[in-house]
């Protein structure tokens, strides 16, 4: 406890230098911007910035990336409140209630409860991260290769079961990512795999190319193919940005509940903020004295899910930093960023790079405070971003995407790969394959293979090693359940559906 506080204070001494404050400010500003803009998100932004930050100090880079990560969460809620077109699934709930509030002239209050709720929950979750992380590090140190492999299998199955509507599609996306990750020289045996005899592919396919292809090129193709035509209504911000007494009274409990719900669910390798936001909405609706207002602009329905969303985002950092397990697309790109600087997240990171880890955690407190200021009084400035004509916006996204990948190694082959992966990304969106598992698979796949082979080397080829250790056995069983339970539920629902059909 005392050790943790000391480490955190040390972290603040790093995060509060004026250079790092500037990097944090740059990060949260950029994050808010890309969170508000459609078609571009934090994962893509960090991926595009990776090559530029190659020569930068790692601590400064990560402080900026963390700012982008948190800022994206804040910005996303502004879009969903003022634009009645649901974007990322975690903010659909906010879109329902927040947009209704905005239409009834209470848009300012909706933005305020989202921003303050995000701040409150983000801070609570960052405190939780501060004290849970060292405990998880101690747990992580006891993990052997077999346990790590089992943990990664769990992350794979939950990510594919949670994201997207169909298990087969989620798995396909994941396997596609793992497959891309196998291209290149196998580090353990020195053999070339899937290189098509090309020298450029011996080093493997760059993660940045894949992420930018799937997120920027694929997304732009998809949006172009079925663009929402006609003018989109951006609701004007009406009312005071300061909530009245009743709005405060109705908001603070959902904030706290959302924070307490989001953090633990976000830290599980179950991926993302979708489940906690939906749960928070359901809980608030059930607890509310005015359930009839839900669906028509209940402030609790904005306050709770927004808090849960931000809290879960902080939770995602726990497995990422302490175990090296990314459970969202942005976390996967951050893991790639660590690898770029020659670092491997996991329990040893806290010993090898304490300045980086604690500077990063301290900067999360700083970033949250900055975001509150950026998003409350200055929200009017951000809203203008929503009125950028879509042709100019998406054209700009593609220019930056091309630039980011071309500047990796000035190679036309990289650009061809980028556009080919973009075409795959387009088909994935068009036919309902979730994109995030592919990115997670590509980054986590090689690590999983490494742990798998290491475990079998230790056990001298005995495959039972994954099922005889209590830790790995438990993780494997949970992983199997994560896959089988949805299938079982699906079959039950179908059987019920069939009997209904017969009744017809």
């Amino acid at each position, binding site marked *: 406890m005392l050790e943790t506080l000391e480490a955190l204070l040390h972290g603040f001494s790093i995060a509060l230098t004026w250079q790092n404050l500037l990097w944090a400010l740059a990060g949260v500003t950029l994050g808010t911007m890309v969170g508000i803009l459609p078609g571009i998100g934090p994962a893509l932004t960090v991926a595009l910035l990776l090559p530029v930050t190659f020569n930068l100090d790692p601590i400064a880079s990560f402080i900026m990336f963390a700012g982008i990560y948190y800022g994206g969460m804040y910005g996303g809620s502004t879009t969903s409140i003022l634009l009645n077109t649901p*974007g990322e699934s975690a903010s659909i709930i906010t879109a329902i209630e927040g947009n209704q509030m905005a239409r009834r002239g209470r848009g300012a209050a909706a933005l305020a409860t989202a921003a303050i709720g995000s701040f409150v929950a983000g801070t609570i979750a960052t405190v939780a991260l501060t004290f849970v992380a060292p405990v998880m590090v101690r747990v992580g140190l006891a993990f052997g290769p077999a346990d790590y492999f089992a943990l990664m299998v769990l992350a794979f199955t939950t990510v594919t079961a949670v994201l997207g*509507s169909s298990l087969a599609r989620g798995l396909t996306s994941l396997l596609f990512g*793992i497959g891309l990750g196998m291209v290149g020289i196998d580090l353990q045996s020195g053999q070339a795999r899937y290189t098509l005899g090309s020298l450029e592919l011996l080093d493997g396919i760059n993660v940045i190319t894949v992420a930018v292809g799937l997120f920027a090129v694929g997304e732009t193709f998809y949006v172009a193919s079925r663009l929402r035509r006609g003018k989109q209504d951006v609701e004007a911000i009406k009312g005071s940005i300061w909530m009245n007494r009743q709005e405060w009274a109705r908001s603070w409990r959902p904030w706290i509940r959302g924070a307490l719900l989001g953090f633990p669910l976000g830290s599980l390798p179950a991926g993302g903020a979708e489940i906690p936001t939906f749960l928070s909405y359901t809980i608030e609706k059930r607890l509310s004295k005015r359930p009839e207002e839900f669906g028509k602009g209940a402030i609790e329905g904005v306050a709770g899910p927004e808090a849960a969303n931000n809290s879960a985002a902080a939770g995602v950092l726990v497995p990422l930093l302490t175990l090296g397990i990314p459970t969202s697309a942005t976390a996967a790109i951050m893991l790639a960023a660590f690898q770029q600087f020659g670092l491997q997240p996991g329990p040893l990171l806290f010993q090898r790079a304490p300045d980086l880890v604690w500077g990063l955690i301290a900067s999360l407190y700083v970033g949250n405070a900055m975001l509150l200021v950026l998003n409350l009084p200055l929200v009017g400035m951000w809203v203008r971003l929503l009125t950028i004509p879509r042709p100019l916006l998406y054209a700009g996204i593609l220019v930056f995407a091309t630039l980011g990948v071309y500047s990796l190694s000035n190679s036309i082959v990289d650009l061809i790969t980028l556009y080919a992966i973009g075409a795959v990304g387009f088909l994935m969106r068009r036919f*309902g394959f979730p994109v995030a598992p592919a990115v997670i698979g590509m980054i986590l796949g090689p690590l999983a293979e490494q742990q798998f082979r290491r475990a079998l080397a230790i056990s001298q080829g005995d495959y039972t090693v994954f099922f005889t250790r209590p830790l790995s056995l438990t993780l494997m069983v949970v992983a199997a359940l994560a896959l089988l339970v949805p299938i079982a539920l699906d079959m039950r629902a179908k059987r019920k559906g069939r009997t209904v059909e017969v009744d017809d």
Partner: protein
Amino acid sequence: MAASTTGRKPIAWGDLLVALGVVGFGVYFLQGAYRIKVLPSYSNIGPRFFPFLVAYALLACGVVLTVQALRGVRGLPEEAEDVDADAPTDWRALVIMGAALLLNLLLMRTAGFIVASTVLYLGVAVAFHERNWLRAVLIGAALSTAIYLAFTDLLGLTLPAGIVPL
């Protein structure tokens, strides 16, 4: 509905093609796995194990998706802020964007970054129904020039200069 009289949904042709594509990926990874060299002296789990695992799992997914598509199960198009998921596919936009990317590839080394990016910018903008072409060209050129100068002068990276004398 007309289809419900027969009790069967029509085959989802688009999904079927994608499902067969997944099977194709599986076959590709499988034949690639056989080609990975394994040294006889190497006693541990070799470089082939994971590729075989991925290949067979992809094949299994492909078969499941094919069966689903034959039964008429469609994948739901993704929702996004600027997307009308129920709209029919706009082939005109896809063709223009594809052409813009191709031109960008061809122009990058010959005409240079600024020209290639301006053409790309214009192409994507037109695919998104931009009416004011001049505005798109001007913004695209300004953006590309600014990026070029920032990258070469400030960051010390190189981008192809091409025909623009800067």
